[in-house]
């Protein structure tokens, strides 16, 4: 839209710093890409996309919570793990039932959390930490602490882990669910209202937006997506236990933040998060190829996240 610049805010330090930082990251990434042996190969690109897809699916789902102004969910890793376990267990009733059951469970877990946050005004961080504990306890109780393996007579799930036209299925799923959610957030009333709620909760209340419903929706979608990722994770590892919880929660949050979504809600997009997830996967891959230790990888990733978060939030505050 063509606009005259009369009332535009002046360029501020935080804008400049952010631009400079993105510049530095781009230069370093390109330099790394050109100098790291084995980076610019088709098989490595596939590896990056595969690595990005699990976290990516969870992260785009999480983005709805971020945009709605409810910060984050800290129960994502546990939700993914229990979903993988339920999926592998319920395969005995067939693949379709397994997938459906797992997704329903994910939706239910998210809905309950969303209700607590939306209807009672509970703090999302506390609610989701509590939920994480509950899920973990339930998983241990139901599985008696053992890993779940798929039934031996059932092999249909292997398709989910196998490559299709040269790329693993999770990559396709990542792309499709990202596009679907991006469209939902841009083109539906639900998406529009999520942005408005995240921008200003008090105003959303005065404008009679359905706050409880929106919050339930946000947590429901995040949890549903995480359950979907859990299905793929279970299929890929063919063995599910709480060990799968891993660092999914933090990786998903990092992807949403590195993408530049405002922590305070209302500003950002699904595409940003997807880009963030791919960027983090790229950096991790590059560091791995260059022989960095696991500790070094985590450290570098952490630094990138922190700097981007600080700069985006400085910029938001100045608006």
């Amino acid at each position, binding site marked *: *839209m*063509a*606009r*005259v610049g009369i*009332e*535009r*805010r002046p360029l501020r330090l935080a804008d400049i710093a952010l631009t400079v930082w993105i510049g530095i990251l781009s230069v370093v990434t390109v330099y790394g890409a050109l100098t790291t042996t084995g980076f610019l190969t088709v098989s490595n690109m596939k590896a990056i996309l595969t690595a990005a897809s699990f976290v990516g699916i969870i992260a785009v789902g999480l983005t709805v919570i971020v945009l709605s102004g409810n910060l984050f969910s800290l129960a994502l890793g546990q939700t993914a793990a229990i979903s993988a376990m339920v999926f592998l267990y319920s395969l005995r009733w067939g693949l379709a039932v397994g997938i459906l059951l797992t997704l329903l469970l994910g939706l239910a877990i998210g809905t309950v959390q969303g209700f607590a946050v939306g209807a009672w005004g509970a703090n999302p961080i506390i609610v989701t930490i509590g939920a994480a504990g509950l899920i973990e306890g339930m998983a241990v109780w139901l599985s008696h602490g053992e890993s779940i393996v798929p039934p031996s007579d059932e092999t249909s799930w292997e398709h989910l882990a196998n490559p299709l036209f040269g790329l693993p299925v999770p990559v396709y799923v990542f792309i499709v669910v990202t596009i679907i959610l991006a469209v939902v957030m841009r*083109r*539906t*009333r*639900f998406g*529009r*209202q999520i*942005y*408005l709620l995240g*921008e*200003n909760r*008090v*105003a*959303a*209340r*005065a*404008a*009679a*937006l*359905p706050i409880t419903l929106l919050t339930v929706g946000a947590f429901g979608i995040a949890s549903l997506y995480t359950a979907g990722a859990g299905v793929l994770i279970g299929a890929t590892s063919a063995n599910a236990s709480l060990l799968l919880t891993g660092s999914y929660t933090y990786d998903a949050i990092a992807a949403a933040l590195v993408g530049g979504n405002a922590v305070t809600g*209302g*500003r950002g997009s699904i595409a940003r998060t997807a880009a963030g997830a791919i960027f983090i996967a790229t950096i991790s891959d590059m560091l791995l190829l260059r022989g960095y230790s696991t500790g070094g990888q985590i450290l570098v990733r952490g630094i990138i996240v922190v700097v981007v978060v600080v700069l985006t939030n400085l910029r938001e505050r100045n*608006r």
Partner: protein
Amino acid sequence: MNGERDPAAESGSRSPLIDASVAPVLLEVIDLSKSFGAVRAVRDLTLDVRVGEVHAICGHNGAGKSTLVKALVGLVRPDEGVIRFDGNEISLRNPHDAQAHGIALVNQELSLVPELTVEDNIFLGGLDVPLLYRRRRLSEHARSVLDQLGLRHVQLGRSVESLSIGERQLVEIARLLVRDARLLILDEPTATLSKPEIERVFKATRDLVAQGRSVIFVSHRLDEVFELCDRVTVLRDGQRVATHEIHEIDRRTLIEHMLGEMEGARAMGEHGHAIPVSGEAVVRIDRLNVPGSVEDVSLTLESGIITGLAGQVGSGTSTILRALGGLVPNASGTVEVRGKKVLLNTPRRASAAGLLYIPNDRQREGLFLGQTVERNLTVVRLRRLSRLGVLLRRRIQRAARELATMAGVDLDRLGSPAASLSGGNQQKVLLGRALQLEGTALLALDEPTRGVDVGGRADIHNLVREAAREGTAVIFSSTELDEVLDLADVVVTIFHGRIVSIVPRAEASASAILADMTTSHASGTGMSS
């Protein structure tokens, strides 16, 4: 005594030696002027405050009271004029300077920290608290000051949160006394207090002046001015109209001073108001109560009629509208919309019943500042602009364009964040979202022109009239007499949460409304803590 309007008697040039019955002058303001842009908030203002007097400053909104107060405590720098304190010319560049001279402001919004103790609050931010202060001596000092203010029962270690509003106000005063303030400015100190609390503040004030301190008392409430003050200065349009000894003036004269020529011009209803045709009763409010702020308010609102709630800050007008918007869960009473009883415990319910509330605080509660103007204009009608949950983008754009055109918002700015607009245009966007919304029975506008300049105000008034002409019932609140008289078909005056009077516009007179807005007659019992 001197003649009432003898300029020489008022200019502060008089020496106290001439009239022995008059105490020496503590503060002199001479020819003070201050403009904000094109608005001359204060013009050639001259006044003096004597040692040991309570000096009232009266005038309705926009008269220049708050600019004067701000100049005296260093919050705004005057363009011209001299301020003398104790005979010496002083310059007040910031609140620090004012504090150093012993001029202190007790604000409507108290500056205490609720979580800290009374004692901590008293010494917080003090100029002369030594690094290694002698705690006991300070405590004793604080104690004696509190006792003197009638707060004998309040322990120093109590947290401020646990005190009543009136007690907090006294603690705030104590805080200033510990700093040895010689001139205290009380800005609308009683707006949120109950009757006994007001008495406490008054008693403390009388004790202070008896000790030779001086008090400037800014208030809308004329009863209190007559009860407490020694002299009164009336401001209007940034200028001083008159200064009187309180026993020389009566209530009617004071109101006339405050209104000026307005009375004559406005009382006739010659403002192009069509005589409202009595419409169909759309909303009936029966005995609306909100603990602590609204008492037994019953009103019938008719389609096409604009009802104005006139009342000072804290009188409860805003709470009445918020209750209609479903934002006051502890409100009780019944509200019927088109004959059906409505439960107003959530904004969703209120809006489903056709009650559309527009908040007074556009930045905090009204707008989604970081979102585009288009999104702000369409927020309450998204259901109509979508099918099966999918937004109809063409229709949204068209609706936003229509609303922006109607509200007078630049169409080029539909894609810009609301935050980038000026205050007046933001207000138009906020109001624009309520226009022509199908199913609206009542438009409840909470101070629709707060912080909007004169031009923008006229535009907004036209929008409201337009909405009423189309058959919506409209109710708005305002603290400004001009606005109420300009816009309302029916004027409802509220004092201390109760209805004082309901008058059709044609019969409303500015002085009667102002008297009702400022009087506690028959309703003073309404609030008890």
